[in-house]
């Protein structure tokens, strides 16, 4: 029997998800033995034309990481959707939009102008901006266009499963690949990680006070943090209560609060709103001025609560930005 075909592809991502595949360490050998990798641009040489030539549904599973923000990424997402039996959104960006999703607070023009002209580290004397086509030696070259905003994979094509995380941890990657190869798959559309908040597996759980009363919020660099005490009890915003578990509490174990990369549990529509709700309800003061003073410790609520999920939030994108 031929080995099942598997593809890995990346869109708007940093490469960290690719790294995780390698982080499987010697376990990757077991995976490579059982599957036939047909596309993996970061590590192996395949051409898009090879994929186009394949019959539809001939790839058993495609692990696609990265958000969708250009026409090329969108086209590849559609192509891989057509060629794959299972399309798996791998990592925060494909799952909920990820860090690139924060770009949904700005217009495409603002982003291009800052990146190519305004940023302090940029030297661009001629003011060149990326073009979608240009002519050279009589040939017209076409380049992908940047979309107006960033989308999660499932906002562009149908997705079968999600593997969360920025990047997904080796344990859940291994579990996902195992489930796939052995056909132990849950209902379509499931996130392949436990459906319970991170606090449940956090080693600091016992120190979480039943009644947190915030008198201030501090950011991790502003205070020497107790390595064993619940972050919320120390006045640090920890996204644990609003975030799915499964990562093995890596950040809290490294004395850093959870920033929410595994996304919400299945019962939550909007991770940021839930976190805001829970944190704010537990602020100590009862008067507007007192409350505002405490809230000064959260200068950027969108960036704090939607760090990995703005495109999948209820509002998705800042209002008033151009749509086309």
């Amino acid at each position, binding site marked *: 029997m031929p080995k099942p075909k598997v593809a890995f592809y990346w869109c708007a991502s940093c490469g960290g998800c690719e790294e995780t595949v390698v982080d499987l360490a010697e376990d990757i050998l077991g995976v490579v033995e059982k599957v036939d990798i047909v596309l993996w641009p970061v590590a192996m040489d395949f051409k898009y034309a090879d994929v186009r030539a394949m019959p539809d549904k001939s790839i058993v599973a495609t692990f696609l990481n990265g958000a*969708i923000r250009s*026409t090329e990424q*969108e*086209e590849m997402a*559609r192509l891989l959707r057509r060629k794959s039996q299972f399309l798996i959104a791998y990592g925060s960006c494909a799952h909920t939009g990820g860090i690139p999703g924060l770009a949904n*607070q700005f217009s495409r023009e603002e982003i291009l102008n800052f990146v190519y002209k305004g940023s302090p580290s940029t030297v661009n004397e001629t003011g060149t901006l990326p073009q979608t086509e240009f002519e050279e030696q009589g040939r017209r070259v076409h380049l992908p266009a940047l*979309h*107006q*905003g960033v*989308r999660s994979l499932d*906002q*562009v094509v149908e997705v079968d499963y999600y593997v969360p995380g920025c990047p997904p941890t080796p344990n859940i990657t291994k579990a996902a690949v195992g489930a796939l190869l052995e056909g132990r798959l849950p209902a379509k559309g499931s996130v392949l990680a436990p459906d319970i908040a991170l606090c449940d597996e956090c080693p600091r759980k016992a120190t979480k006070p039943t009644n947190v009363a915030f008198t201030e919020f501090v950011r991790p660099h502003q205070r020497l943090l107790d390595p064993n005490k619940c972050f919320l009890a120390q006045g640090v915003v920890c996204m644990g209560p609003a975030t799915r578990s499964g990562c093995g509490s890596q950040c809290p174990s490294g004395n850093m609060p959870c920033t929410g990369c595994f996304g919400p549990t299945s019962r*939550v*529509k*909007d991770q*940021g*709103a*839930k976190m*805001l*709700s829970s*944190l*704010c*309800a537990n*602020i100590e003061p*009862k008067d*507007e001025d007192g*409350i*505002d003073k405490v*809230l000064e410790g*959260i200068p*950027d*609520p*969108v960036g704090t*609560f939607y760090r990995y999920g703005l495109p999948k*939030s*209820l*509002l*998705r*994108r*800042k*209002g*008033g*930005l151009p*749509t*086309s």
Partner: protein
Amino acid sequence: MTEKKWTPRLVAFFCNWCTYTAADLAGVSRLKYASNVRIIRVMCSGRIDPQFVLEAFAKGADGVLIGGCHPNDCHYVEGNYKMLRRYRLLKRMLADMGIEPDRFRLEWISAAEGEKVKRVVDEMVQKLTALGPLAWDKKLEDWDREVKALEEHVQAQQTTKEVANA
């Protein structure tokens, strides 16, 4: 084609014990207030999940009004304070997302203040009318056209291929 004239859609979450009762009072007192408001009764303003507010905006509300008991009067002791704290940050966050502050309001209205329901609703509808439509649902629809375009293009290509092969 005659398009129906736009009037604001205001979603109001009123607590059962004070503000909703006040709205009832406004009704039995035959006070007239703007009919743009859609009142949703909740047991306590502390029950209003910020998700409700975001969802209302995302689905096309032009404004969201929250009514709860005055401080110290909450039937559940603390619920209105919880709402107030959420409101302070949510309002700031909505502004960061491009939703004008006048579109989101919290008011304490006791069961005896039918008149205040009328005043607050009328004021808010007036402000929303001045602001114009928010139409978040339409914005998202418009924006999603940029991915629809390629899908249609791909489909058109496939159809021509199939026609050519036939």
